[in-house]
């Protein structure tokens, strides 16, 4: 009976997850409904509706002060929302923050530790808040310290560099083998080698089925690991989807024309197609603006004329430029 209920529950969850790209049978792991946080009359997060599926690596982008960290603090049960609610694995965070904290890991921005304790002692202190026996804690800590290359480091955490602290932060976020991992500016203090290792680790964790929520203002970082992104500006979700989808959503409307870049070895002849709106020529290169994607017809025409095509592609909006435009708003 209970099994049937569980299956029904999962079925209903999968219906919700239909909104998550590439998530057919996966469940919704993180969900916010009209999530709002107001500080001194100013909304830091303003009516945020967000759904992140199980096993996703979700990039939460936005400029500094957009409300990313505040959203994470609400999702991790560290502050209460002014309005709305958020759920992690179907648990309402504000109602049962402890249950949520048991299944999540959180790496805060500029993570801090007890300077008078070693990495092992710091991790052991945090691990004691979970139902872990002494042997289990010891084994887990050894495994994590090895993972973040801090095994054998006898220094106290107070003497750590920022990069070492960041790596220890990742270890403490993984101490309970969480289902969901929240990472706030995870590569901020890492060197290039550390960044590469971090990326590998995140991809490995996602392969294990963990949901990873990465908050960052660095687009390149999010682009490197995240499959879907949400863009936050002034506390509001501006766009959500794959990076390409978000970029297209945010690109200023060009009267629904498709921009096709064409380059031939020979000089481009006059192009005649009823769907062509305009052509910007530059020698043997041109940007054709058309009402639809006419690449197949265009290629056939040029081929018939004996021309050699070097390049033909639909010009995607430049993601960096699009995001910068949102950041500057």
């Amino acid at each position, binding site marked *: 009976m209970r099994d049937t209920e569980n299956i029904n529950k999962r079925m209903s969850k999968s219906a919700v997850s239909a909104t998550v790209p590439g998530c057919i049978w996966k469940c919704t792991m993180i969900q916010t409904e009209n999530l709002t946080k107001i500080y001194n009359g100013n909304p830091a997060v303003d009516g945020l509706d967000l759904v992140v599926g199980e096993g996703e690596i979700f990039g939460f982008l936005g400029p500094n002060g957009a409300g990313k960290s*505040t959203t994470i603090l609400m999702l991790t049960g*560290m502050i209460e929302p002014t309005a709305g609610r958020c759920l992690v694995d179907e648990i309402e965070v504000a109602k049962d923050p402890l249950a949520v904290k048991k299944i999540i890991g959180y790496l805060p921005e500029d993570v*801090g530790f007890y300077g008078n304790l070693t990495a092992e002692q710091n991790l052991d202190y945090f691990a004691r808040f979970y139902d872990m026996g002494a042997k289990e804690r010891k084994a887990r800590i050894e495994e994590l310290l090895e993972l973040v290359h801090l095994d054998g480091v006898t220094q106290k955490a107070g003497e750590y560099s920022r990069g070492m602290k960041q790596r220890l932060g990742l270890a403490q976020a993984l101490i309970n083998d969480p289902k969901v991992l929240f990472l706030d500016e995870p590569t901020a203090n890492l060197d290039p080698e550390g960044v590469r290792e971090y990326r590998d680790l995140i991809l490995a964790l996602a392969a294990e089925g963990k949901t990873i929520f990465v908050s960052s203002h660095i687009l390149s970082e999010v682009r490197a690991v995240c499959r879907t992104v949400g863009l936050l500006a002034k506390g509001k979700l501006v766009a959500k989807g794959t990076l390409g989808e978000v970029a297209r959503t945010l690109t200023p409307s060009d009267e629904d024309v498709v921009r096709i870049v064409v380059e031939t070895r020979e000089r481009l002849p006059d192009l005649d197609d009823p769907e062509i709106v305009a052509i910007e020529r530059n020698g043997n290169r041109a940007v054709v603006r058309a009402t639809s994607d006419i690449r197949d017809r265009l290629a056939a025409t040029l081929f018939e004329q004996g021309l050699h095509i070097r390049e033909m592609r639909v010009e995607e909006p430049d993601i960096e430029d699009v995001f910068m435009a949102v950041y500057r708003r």
Partner: protein
Amino acid sequence: MAFDRLLNVAKKEFSDHITSRRFVIILGLLLVISAVGAHAGIESYNNLLESYNQQLQHVQDIDVSGPYTGWMPEKPSILLILSPMMSYMTTLGAVLAIAIGFDLVSKEKETRSLKSLLSHPVYRDEIINGKALGGIAALGFAMVLALAISLAILLLFSIVPTLTEFAAILIFGAVTLGFLLAYFAIALMMSTIAKESGNALIYTMVIFFAVSTLLPVLGAVAGEALAGDRPEPPQTAPLPKEVIWVDNGGYSSTSVSQSVVYEGKAVEVDPAWQQYEDDMRAYSERRMLISSVTNLFSPQMNYFTAAMAVTNPRIATVIHSPLDSMPAETPGLAEALSQVWMNIAALIVFPSAFFAATYVKFMRMDIR
């Protein structure tokens, strides 16, 4: 499980305290002074004991029909050896309490470890209660060590306390711990309010000086101002009076007048002077009441009064009722404590109020 989490925080805090250089240095100093103080106290006790034995000898020799008929000298109490501890606890003890409390929360804010801690399954109240419990345990540990050293020195000199004296020593320890907790609670609250540990220390020291030094002076000034006009003595010559000056350790002094009865015959009292004495008593009582109420806000004064009731109940009675004659017999421990219940209550209420304020502030603290 909730208790486990609280205990986890408390154990870590206790361990941090007793292994911190700051705590070890101050505790070491405290223990050395305890040992020296106890040794000096034993010397005083031995002198008093010798004097007692001499008086005992004289009592057997005096005239049986004289005014001191039936008078017996009182055996000195070994609790006198705790008197030096009272003095240094009000300073060094308070410093120790402040030292372990002033950065308990602010340091976690500065190093951002609080955010890391809160991301794990632990409630905020468990953190602040655990911190308070760890600090209380560390101060209790310091107190037990200080008393243990004093007791060890007593035993070294072959002085074995009776059961009552041992109970009094334990009560003295509890009262001292209450005093230490007052400053620990202030420091913890300032640590929660201030963003930086440096500011928390400054705020705590300001309160320390305000309640230990300024408040008693203000109490005396307020008593002077609010008790009304001081009665004027009559112009006639006074009848003979005996005046006893009571020294209670340098904190305050008072005078006591008493009529001396010789063989059942009272000395004739001048009505004008009797009226003056009554007015003066009422005036002094008003002043004392105002001063006492003000002093209830000073942990130092409460501690001094309560500890004195334990270590020297006779003097404590005189301090409590300076206008009455000195009691013929030393009051019992229970009686002495009942006279200072307000001060003992204040020693409980004072830290409790600050702990409560700390709790509320910590629960509402912005941890961004």
